[in-house]
């Protein structure tokens, strides 16, 4: 049923989380092959944020496993997961306000090379890392602002910087948490173009509200509603699915009240 099942680079199996009696995530299973472009969608309150926190190691699951390649990473902390190649971006940008985009990307590169916390070295003298950072920033059209403080650049550019940092980390699996959230609609094409340029072999899981973006980006869609997966399949089929419609209409009906 699932094309990724053969040799998944990333697999979540029967993942559950309850807060007290409330099942926020229940028996969620997802498998992703290298190069996959999967979107996880769902109405507000479906448990998407909890899912992200479970997968990235911010909170511990009540049951189920998370595997990265051959390794079971369920018990690993957030930092250890990143080091093994499971990288995320943030729904609301998490950047260093007083640092430049270049400094962010250089730090990510140095960390990838195991040199990020060296004392007897110069941060701004790291030649090869600076060149690589310049390339990445150029790919995303951030060269102009590479040396401005993050607080001085536009929000759309900050979102692109989140993607640039992720690219510098060279992940195996990338989790994009609403990569276009808060960006003015005139700038969303910039984000889309950046996403199109992600390495072909990278497995990308996008958590997103914006259905237009999902349809353009994802080759497979999975729908989370009330903590459970209710649909996995092609983007073209998702709107025709009765349970999906019910879940979304239900939430819209609640929202309208």
């Amino acid at each position, binding site marked *: 049923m699932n094309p990724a099942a053969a040799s998944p680079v990333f697999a979540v199996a029967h993942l559950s989380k309850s807060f007290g009696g409330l099942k926020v995530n229940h028996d969620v299973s997802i498998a992703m092959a290298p190069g996959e472009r999967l979107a996880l969608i769902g109405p507000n309150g479906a448990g998407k944020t909890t899912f992200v926190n479970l997968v990235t190691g911010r909170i511990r699951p009540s049951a189920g496993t998370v595997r990265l390649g051959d390794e079971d990473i369920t018990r690993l902390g957030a930092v250890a997961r990143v080091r093994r190649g499971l990288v995320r971006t*943030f729904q609301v940008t998490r950047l260093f306000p007083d640092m430049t985009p270049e400094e962010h990307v250089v730090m990510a590169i140095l*960390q990838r090379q195991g040199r990020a916390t060296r004392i007897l070295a110069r941060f701004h003298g790291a030649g090869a890392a600076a060149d690589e950072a310049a390339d990445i920033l150029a790919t995303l059209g951030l060269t102009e602002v590479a040396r401005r403080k993050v607080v001085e650049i536009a929000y759309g550019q900050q979102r692109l910087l989140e993607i640039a940092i992720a690219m510098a980390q060279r992940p195996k699996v990338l989790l994009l948490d609403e990569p276009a959230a808060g960006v003015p609609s005139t700038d969303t094409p910039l984000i889309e173009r950046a996403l199109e340029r992600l390495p072909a072999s990278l497995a990308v899981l996008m958590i997103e509200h914006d259905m237009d973006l999902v349809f353009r980006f994802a080759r497979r869609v999975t729908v989370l509603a009330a903590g459970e997966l209710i649909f996995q399949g092609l983007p073209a089929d998702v709107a025709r699915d009765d349970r999906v419609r019910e879940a979304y209409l239900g939430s819209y009906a609640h929202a309208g009240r």
Partner: protein
Amino acid sequence: MAQASAPMAAATPARDLGRDLAGLALILAAGLAGYWLFPDNLSFLTRLISVALLVLSLDLIVGYCGIASLGQAALYGAGAYAAGIACLNGVTEPFLLILIGAAAGAVTGLLMGTVMLRAHGLPQLVLSIAIVQLLHEAANKAAWLTGGSDGLAGMVPAPLFGLFEFDLWGRAAYLFGLGLLVAVFVALKLLVRSPFGMVCRGLKEDPLRVSALGISAFPVLLRMFVISGAVAGMGGALGAISTQVVGLDSVSFELSANALVMLVLGGLGNLYGALIGTVVFMAVEHVVAAIDPFHWMTLVGALLIAIVLFAPRGLSGTLDEAARILARRPRRAGP
């Protein structure tokens, strides 16, 4: 691609280096000016340098890592007592005494960091106070080692380079201290510009982003505590060598709090602020306390309120801002 940003690329590191060299020259010039202008106050000026090292060490923790501490004198006092005890037991070489102070401060920093980094925010601040109070009490009780409330006295360090006595006028001690301060300042400037220093700044600005980069905060912060401890310990050792006494006040909450006041006064997170704050605070204390020993704190309090209200980035931040405004005018011709 690298060329595209080259014009701006050339500017930043070079300008930083120029500024650092100018800053260093300024510190040296001010230090030597002090030597010529106030020959009768050299022991006070040496104490000022000793405290400046303490405030610099606090800037590493507060200004670069964003961890508030009201117990920094624990590290300073550890260095002072270690150097004092060593000196009384026959280790009189001044450079060695500084190293002993640094080592004692570093070890205390390791312990203090291990405890403090378990907590965050207000509990962390309370832990720092608890640690300095505990050490204060320990130094008070262990009178056989520390002299208790009488403190240690009668240390006679060997002459500097075997030539210059640590005499009553304190010329050798002052120049020794000034050399130490400059060396430490250069080392710390390199430290904060290292990848490690940048990660510390990152941890101050957004720890969650740092962990998403795959960097663990704890070992980084603990190393900074050790480094900070070494710097504070050197300050303590310098104080012990120059005054030739070590008292309980060197490991007190009051000194810790004063150090934080000096740092806020001068400005956090650029190392210059630590020096400026120390000089202003101690100069005011020295001059005003001589005139009116009961109300000098009132003036410092008023000064601090004025700084917090009108120049929240401290004296150094305000100077920086003024320099930037002045520098911007002619450059506005460009794009």
